């Protein structure tokens, strides 16, 4: 009796707002704030700081998209999501986009009905060993004990790698990164393996980071990128080209410091098109002409965002590596603004 009334109220109360039917971009504009799904906390990639302000590499992309739409990088409602809640939050419309170090895979793109709009970080599984072990390549790890998180793709990648190289290993199963740190430092395993960015962030917290080395081998592909729902290509374009604008800005030498000067007009037509002084790219995508300029001013171009949050001068200390511009031997590459 009580229960049925309660549940009835619950269901009905939930239906109060009525369904939204317009496109995501119109919804976001009408709402006046972007709902961006982020990680609950991952060093360098996203976490609220002491003042409660969200900071991080993925967070900067949310801010850039908000700046492109509203001209205001603070017009974002950050929705923290865990690995378990992230996809339902996006699919149900609770968030407009997800920027949460999520690997682009076939099944997520096709089966879960999401659209990965690009890659903002190329990660891969790596190995960390104590320097004292005297190992310089993962192929020398025959017979090593390896700390490995159970139930992840890293476990399968590890087995594949050792089998392909015809060497043996002994796995030490662990549950969380925190446990892994303790086990590894206590000497329970010779090697710790997980995503290379995670290894670097973990090593940065050690008392003596210099005593540990990351081996050069990267044994899996983990392209991390922002994603949106299937079925709203216009909205996907906004996120995709905001990311591309940041990447192109670095390629063309447009930074948060000089963007104001450059937007007065330059000799380079592509810079002009990017910053909206030439052509009508903004109109095509449904935003202001200077949308890309605002996105760049929010936190700088791709390179600036990288350096500020996870670059070599931060405690995370990641080198650009695969994430350098294509002109410098990396994979970061944006289609032209034309």
């Amino acid at each position, binding site marked *: *009796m*009580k*229960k*049925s*009334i*309660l549940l009835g*109220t*619950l*269901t*009905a*109360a*939930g*239906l*109060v*707002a*009525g*369904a*939204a*039917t317009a496109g995501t971009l119109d*919804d976001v504009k009408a*709402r006046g704030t972007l709902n961006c799904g982020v*990680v*609950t*906390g*991952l*060093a*360098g990639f*996203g*976490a*609220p*700081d*002491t*003042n*409660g*302000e969200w900071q991080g590499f993925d967070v900067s992309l949310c801010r850039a998209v908000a700046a492109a739409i509203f001209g205001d990088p603070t017009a974002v*409602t950050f*929705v*923290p*999501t*865990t690995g*378990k*809640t992230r996809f*339902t*939050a996006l*699919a*149900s*419309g*609770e968030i407009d986009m997800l920027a949460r170090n999520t690997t682009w895979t076939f099944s997520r793109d096709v089966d879960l009905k999401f659209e990965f709009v690009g890659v903002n970080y190329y990660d891969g599984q790596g190995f960390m060993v104590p320097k004292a072990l005297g190992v310089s390549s993962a192929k020398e790890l025959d017979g090593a004990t390896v700390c490995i998180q159970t139930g992840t793709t890293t476990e399968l990648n590890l087995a594949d790698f050792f089998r392909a190289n015809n060497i043996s290993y002994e796995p030490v199963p662990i549950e969380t990164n*925190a446990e892994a*740190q303790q086990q590894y430092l206590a000497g329970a395993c010779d090697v710790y393996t997980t995503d290379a960015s995670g290894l670097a*962030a973990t090593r*940065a*917290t*050690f*008392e003596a980071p210099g005593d540990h080395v990351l081996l050069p081998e990267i044994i899996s592909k983990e392209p991390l990128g922002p994603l949106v729902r299937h079925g709203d290509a216009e909205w996907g374009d906004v996120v995709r080209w905001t990311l591309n604008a940041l990447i192109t800005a670095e390629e063309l030498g447009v930074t948060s410091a000089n963007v104001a000067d450059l937007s007065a007009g330059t000799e380079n037509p592509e810079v002009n098109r990017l910053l909206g002084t030439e052509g009508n790219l903004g109109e095509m995508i449904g935003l202001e002409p200077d949308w890309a300029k605002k996105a760049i001013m929010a936190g700088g171009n791709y390179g600036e965002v990288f350096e500020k949050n996870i670059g070599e001068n*931060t*405690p*995370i200390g990641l080198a650009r590596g695969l994430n350098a511009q294509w002109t410098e031997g990396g994979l970061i590459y944006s289609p032209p603004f034309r």
Partner: protein
Amino acid sequence: MSGTHAHTAAFVRTSEIPPSLPPQNEGGVGRWMRENLFSGPINSILTLIALFFVIRLLIFVVPWIYSGVWTADSLSGCRAVLEGARGACFSVLTDRWHQLLFGSAYPHDATFLSFMTGVPVEDLRFTSGVRENTNFFQEFFFGYWRPVLAFILLFVAIAPILYQDLPRKMMIFTGLYPFVAFWFVWGGSIWLPITLLIGLGLAYMLYSNLAKQSFFMGVLAFLGVVIILFLNPITMVFGLLDFLRDLIAAMGWERGDNSMMLADRFQGAASIFPLNAHVVEFLSSIIPIELQSVASRDIGGFMLNMILGTVCVSLSLPLGIALALGRQSNLPVIKWVCVVFIEFIRGVPLITLLFVANVVLAYFLPPGTNFDLILRVIIMITLFAAAYIAEVIRGGLAALPRGQYEAADSLGLDYAQSMRLIILPQALKISIPGIVNVAVGLFKDTTLVSIISMYDLIGLIRGPVLASTDWNGVYWELFSFAALLFFVICYGISQYSQWLERKLQTGHR
């Protein structure tokens, strides 16, 4: 008297001999140790082993705490101060306590803090500025006066419930407290809690008048008033119709057409609801009394655990009693609804219910729906706890001899009177240990909300604090702090319940 004996006895002692001390090894510490610690060879060995471990633990822990660093600004700063020595890095607590207690982005009241300390308000906008210009107590009591005051008033509000000797008039404040605390914690216009209070009061008056004739009519009237005042009946009805139609369409019986959404078509009529929103708007325009409004997402830390714990325990107790009585009902419908509810909820892990609240409901609710996440979680945890409390109370009811029921009947009491005056007071007394057990467990279970990405105390530690580059790697200090906070509350609850059991002990056993 002594006079009559004066010539028959040489000496009559007029005062008692003071008791002499027991023999040296039959009293004091020596005897206690011999009886309790070294009463036999096995006990002696066990004592020594235990002593060995306790001392080792203390040798390990005490210097770690004693040489702890409280003022560094990061883990590497702590290590620099310690220079390789063992020591705790409590600086993470001094740096992040406001987040651990109140949530990652709960705003401090810069204006009030400035008023109380004389520091210009511009210097107090951000936490870093607050730390430079004020001390801990000023920040805690003046900067965060809203949640702190709500917490202190909580004890005033529950005091008359916990201690029957206090004046009964204090119950008035207890009734007002939920509205006061809501306003302090969430902020916004004062007229929202006031209209809520008045509206609920009206609905209750209507209910109590109608319930004399028909309980069912009373409940209907109560819900009707609540829906008209605080919810939106038009969108509820049409939204439900739309939902049903979509459901039918999804089953393939009819093609769904989004342009025909009834809820959208009647948006104009729907905008007059909820009625109290207009009243609040009108009153705030005349007499604007406001606190800075805080979004539910910014409420977190131990405060979130406390909110979930107190609200869910206090709601689940009456619901649990109702379920326990319903399960004993002679009316088959009520009985089976209660049985199915209890057995279903008890058969499902709390985590699953929380996922339903967070994830599954999000699929069923239309996008853009603002159905507060904290409210959803409160509903789920309350239902969960109510099922357990119902079973505990059923145990209490079953323990009463049948004669108690018959005695109530023979006095001519009706069902409500016999329950209120005879059965429940005894059954609840028997159930106290079980209810407290559920309450303590429930309070600790509130940390599970971290799994659905809410920033309660544990969620905050695992998320923002450990993910900051400053504090990544500080585990023991943070989790010990969390354990300490939970222990204080849970031990307090447990001590109160033991006191209550002793007080209500009337010699039945």
